[in-house]
């Protein structure tokens, strides 16, 4: 066998240590992505090798927390990809309206911006009262932020533009109270959101739901892990349930692609066949 690059061996060992010590499994994430995140942390922390980080990971809790946080991508925004939310309004809301109660699973909700976006949309469509949104993530720090529902005021302008482009029916300012630094989301938006720690890689089926949103999470997984998670989504959805992926994520490589029909291929919205 040809000798492997030392850094790659060290990264494999680091991911193994993270799994054995902390229970987070990044071993089936895309290599280039993981390597980039780990090398970033190495440079930031002033270490010369990944092996030096291995010691810190095992013996320095605060370093371990930082590294785990780095490996979870928390970049998100309100009404991200406005065309997606427009499509939800036009094509999915009529389907959801036929159910007496609605359960939505937002898998990988990060800091919650998209869960709040969905709560706003459902409120405007008169469906929030009979909906429960299960917003889950494995990153507890992000989840704690999400529960707070406090966002930096500097982002509000962009979010307002997104909200309007998404077909918002009100003024975005109706949904938060702002001061010079912060915008605090209205409490009633949170009423039917259940925040929960759930790990797509290591945990099992979460609940039986009418709709799943998992946007820009699967892109980080290798194909085998993508298939495993797709299976979990399939088992969680009711027949006729709706699966929403990120704008550049498809079903092309999924073993389950024939189990869904396209509702909006451009926005990556799929319906589980009966």
């Amino acid at each position, binding site marked *: 066998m040809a000798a492997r690059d030392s850094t790659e061996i060290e990264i494999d060992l680091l991911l193994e240590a993270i799994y054995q010590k902390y229970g987070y499994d990044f071993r089936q994430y*895309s*290599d*280039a*992505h993981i390597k*980039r995140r780990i090398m970033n942390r190495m440079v930031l922390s002033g270490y010369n090798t990944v092996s030096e980080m291995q010691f810190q990971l095992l013996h320095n809790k605060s370093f371990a927390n930082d590294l785990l946080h780095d490996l979870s991508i928390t970049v998100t925004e309100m009404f991200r990809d406005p065309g997606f939310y427009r499509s939800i309004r036009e094509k999915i809301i009529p389907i959801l309206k036929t159910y007496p109660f609605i359960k939505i699973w937002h898998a990988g909700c990060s800091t919650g911006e998209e869960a709040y976006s969905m709560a706003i949309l459902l409120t405007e469509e008169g469906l929030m009262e009979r909906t429960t949104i299960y917003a889950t993530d494995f990153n507890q720090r992000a989840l704690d932020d999400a529960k707070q529902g406090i966002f930096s005021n500097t982002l509000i302008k962009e979010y307002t533009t997104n909200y309007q482009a998404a077909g918002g029916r009100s003024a975005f300012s109706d949904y938060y109270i702002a001061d010079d630094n912060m915008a605090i989301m209205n409490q009633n938006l949170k009423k039917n959101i259940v925040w929960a720690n759930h790990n797509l890689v290591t945990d099992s089926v979460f609940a039986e739901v009418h709709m799943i949103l998992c946007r820009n999470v699967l*892109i980080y997984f290798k194909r085998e892990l993508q298939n495993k998670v797709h299976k979990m989504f399939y088992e969680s959805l009711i027949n006729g349930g709706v699966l929403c992926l*990120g704008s*550049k*994520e*498809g079903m092309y490589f999924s073993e389950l692609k024939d189990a869904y029909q396209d509702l909006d291929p451009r926005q990556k919205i799929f319906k589980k066949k009966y």
Partner: protein
Amino acid sequence: MGYGAIVIGVSSGGLNALMKILPSLPENYPIPIVIVQHVSPRSDGYWIESMNRTCRLNVKEADEKEKIERGNIYMASANYHLLVEKDKTFSLSTEAKVNFARPSIDVLFESAAEAYGEELIGLILTGSNSDGALGLRKIKEEGGLTIVQDPETAESPSMPAYAISTTSVDHIFSLEEIANFLQTLGEGN
């Protein structure tokens, strides 16, 4: 020696520059090309379709997990970083902007340098920032070939100038020379 891929980084003034290079390549061009062009996060990719009509090679957005194959010019999607895996497939990422850019040229170049080593050609064109300089240096360190547009001929000179100041690059060319060089390289590949 055969080359496995060409990566191109370009920013402001980029469409004009690309249009002076890419349409001249034949449809049987043997080296796949991967491009990060800085665009607005809200770009709908229409410009990619328009490039596809002008080029003989197939111009398309790079899909996640897609295998990199000859005959194609792959463009990074707006608002996603594009990375190359060791198995010569693409990964996408929404992680924070790098050099104020997503997609970032450095992210593509650094990952492609790891994947292709000395079989990679890196090319920096016009742009008014410093993205791509570190990536180009990485390509050089891994033994790849590095080319930069002559800043004096660039619509926005700072990106090429920054790349030249960071790496001792192999060639500094005008757009016309780049087009000719890539064609010749294709014939010998």
